Structures are given as C-alpha cells and as structure tokens.
C-alpha cells in the first residue's frame, strides 16, 4: 500500500532540515551588525531631530508673536502657549500697528484733496453725533493718556475684537465710510480704552474726511497733533490738517 503523495511530500519537507552552521553563524553576525547599525541611525536621527524641533518651535513662536499664523492656528497657539500676536498688544507706532491702518498718509492726503464738498452719503449716524462721541472718547482717553501704557486695557475681549473687525472690514474692505464711521463709533463706545482705541479714533477721523465732514475730522485730528496720544499718527494728522487748511484757503 503506497502512501498518499501529499503526506509523503509533507513528511519529506518536514524532515529535510539540514543545518549549515556556517550559514547560521553568518546570519547571526549579519543580524547583530544590522541591529547595531539601526541603533546608530536612530541615535543620529534623534540628534538631528532635536535642533530641528527646536527650530520649528522657535519659528512657530515667532510667527505667533508676530501674528503671521492663520487665525485658527493662532487661536490654538494662544490657547496652548499663552503667546498672543503682536497686533493685539502692539504699542502705537509699531510696524504691525501701522500695517493695520491701511491707507498711507499720501493716499489719504490725495483723497482729501479731491474730496467732494458734500458728504458722499447722508449721515446715518446714531443719535449721538460723531463729534460728540469723539469729544467724549477723546476726553476719556486723555484722562489716561499719561498712563505708562497708552494702549489702555491689556486684555481684549472677543466682543471687542469682533467690533473692531467689523469696523475694519467696513472701512478697508467694503470701503463704506458711513458704515465704517458707525462701526468705529460703536467700537469706541464699547471699548473707549480698548487696545485698538487709538487706531479706531484715527480711522474715525479718516471716515469723517471721506464723508466731507471736515470740521469734525479736524476736531478729531487735533488731539493727535497736540500729542495727546504720544507720537502716534502725529505727523499724519498734522499733514491732514495742513491739507484741510490748504483746501480751505487758510
């Protein structure tokens, strides 16, 4: 009786187990060499990864401080590390602060010189006039002008930021001076000593100029020229008033 060929072949495969000691030793040596090489590579990768990680963290921190990160990333970094972008705590005159007030002096001066004598849109201001808001807020600010931090509150609430964003959008994106003026008024009414109050006040004056309300604009610019807010926008305000004077034939 012959064996099942599959069983026979299976048994043959099982029993064919030659052991070549040279091969065994060679494989062993090769394995140990490769394990050591892998360990060395891992150490080298670690040594390289540490400075790279430090560099990456430094870059993120700098970008976060400068406010160059996308908004969601910035919010996350602020929440995790407490690093706030420079734009939210910039002092007057700093680069970032300047960048937020988009129109240059020359551009505004040009616009002022070609400004229509009548307002571009009917004044849709709140019951309190812009001048009243300006004088009130200027007085409020002047009382704290001698404080060491002319920016005012060190913290910024979400509502304050949102109001500022809306005003900024109406002013510089939609280019609607009437809506922007209303929005700046609302921002200042909400945060008269807010972080971006100075910026808002200056932008208020620009809106008034665009609307042809030159007297109110001049009134708003005077505290800047007088140095009530330090040197912030002093030169620009002086140039604008000079342009207004020239237009008025003074």
């Amino acid at each position: 009786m012959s064996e099942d060929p599959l069983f026979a072949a299976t048994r043959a495969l099982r029993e064919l187990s030659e052991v070549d000691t040279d091969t065994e030793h060679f494989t062993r040596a090769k394995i140990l060499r490769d394990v050591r090489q892998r360990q060395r590579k891992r150490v080298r990768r670690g040594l390289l990864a540490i400075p790279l990680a430090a560099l990456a963290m430094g870059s993120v921190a700098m970008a976060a401080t400068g406010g160059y990160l996308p908004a969601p990333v910035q919010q996350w970094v602020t929440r995790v590390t407490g690093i706030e972008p420079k734009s939210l705590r910039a002092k007057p005159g700093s680069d970032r602060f300047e960048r937020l007030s988009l129109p240059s002096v020359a551009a505004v001066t040009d616009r002022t010189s070609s400004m229509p004598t009548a307002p571009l849109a009917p004044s849709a201001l709140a019951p309190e006039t812009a001048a009243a808001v300006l004088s009130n807020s200027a007085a409020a600010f002047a009382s704290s002008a001698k404080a060491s931090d002319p920016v005012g509150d060190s913290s910024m609430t979400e509502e304050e930021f949102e109001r500022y964003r809306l005003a900024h959008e109406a002013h510089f994106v939609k280019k609607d001076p009437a809506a922007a003026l209303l929005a700046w008024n609302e921002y200042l009414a909400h945060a008269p000593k807010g972080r971006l109050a100075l910026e808002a006040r200056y932008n208020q004056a620009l809106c008034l100029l665009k609307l042809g309300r030159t007297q109110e604009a001049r009134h708003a610019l005077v505290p800047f020229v007088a140095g009530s807010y330090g040197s912030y926008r002093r030169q620009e305000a002086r140039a604008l008033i000079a342009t207004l004077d020239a237009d008025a034939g003074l």
Partner: protein
Amino acid sequence: MTSAMTFAEFDLSVFGVSHERHQSPPIDLASRLREGDVQAVAEAYDEFAATVRAFARRLLGDLEVAEDLVHDVFVTLPSAVRNFRGDSSFKTFLISIAVNHARHHMRGAARRRAAMQRYAEEPEARVDDPEALLRQRQLAGALSSALDELPLDQRVAFVLCDVEERPSPEVAAIVGVPEATVRTRLFHARRKLRQKLEQLGVTR
C-alpha cells in the same frame, strides 16, 4: 554526572534547554529587547533561530531566501517586541513576525526555485542512501513548487498545521484569525496541493 545534577537541570536537559537560558525567561528577554539590548538579540537568536529557520525553509522552500527571512525577523525584533504582551509563547510570537515578513520573500523564493529547477542546480545528496534522499528531495521540491501556487494565508496554514504539526489554536494565535478560519484555509490548501502534485507527476 547525572547524580550531581539538580532536578531543575535534569528537567531542562530533557528538552535540550540549558539551565542558563531558562533563567532568562521570555518576558525578561522581551524587556531587554525593548531597551535595544544587542546582547538580548543575540540570545534570542541563539535560542529561537532554529525554530524560525525551520519554518522559513518549509514555508519558502529556499534556503537563501529563508535566511533572509530569519535575518529580517531578528533585525526587526527590537521594534516588533513592543507588541509582545506575554500572552503567547515567544516562539509563537517570532513565527508570527516571520509570517508578517514572509510576503516580501515569497516571490523571490519562487523565482529562485524556478531557476534552480531550470538549470538543475539542486545540490547532490551526501548520505548513505542517496536514492532515498533523492526521492525525499524530489517530494519536498515538488511540494514547495506546489506551495508557490497557493495564496500566502493558505500556504502559512498548511506549513504550520501539516508540515510543522502545530495545533490549530496555536496556528490561530500566530496568524491572528479564528481556528475555524485556519481549518478552512487548510482544507483549501490540501485540495489545491493534491491537484498540483498530480499535475507535477507525484503519484502514489
């Protein structure tokens, strides 16, 4: 000599395991491997390489490719051992690593075997009964060729269950599937292998 042996030494010698090795249980070895101890890799090789090599040779049917598989198993052991929780034997764990690596080596082994058959470079027998050994080699070679036709899962099931005669619960643990799946794979593997052996002219 035997009388001077302790009971533990005698007990171990029956299984061909030295007393010194037994004092280094797999869990301890695993923890040293996790720490990247090269000496632990050497110890693991000395103790378990024969098992892995036998499985690799039976699965792949090619000595050189089997050595490559053994090499891969032990080189990757320090990182793979992180998955070893000690709920199966260390041998079982090593065989499961070999199964995971086998896929990369199967094609190369089949190619080499086909080339060897073409050029008739099979080594000659050097034993007392050359005819018997030749017959044995032919049968083993035919089975290895037939195994090349099977999917890896069925091939592994056949080698572990029928060639290495491991119980199906252990095979299930090695390949990480239920026992019923192992049995199904084994059934299909046997059927296909019988057909293939017939085609190759291996008959009763």
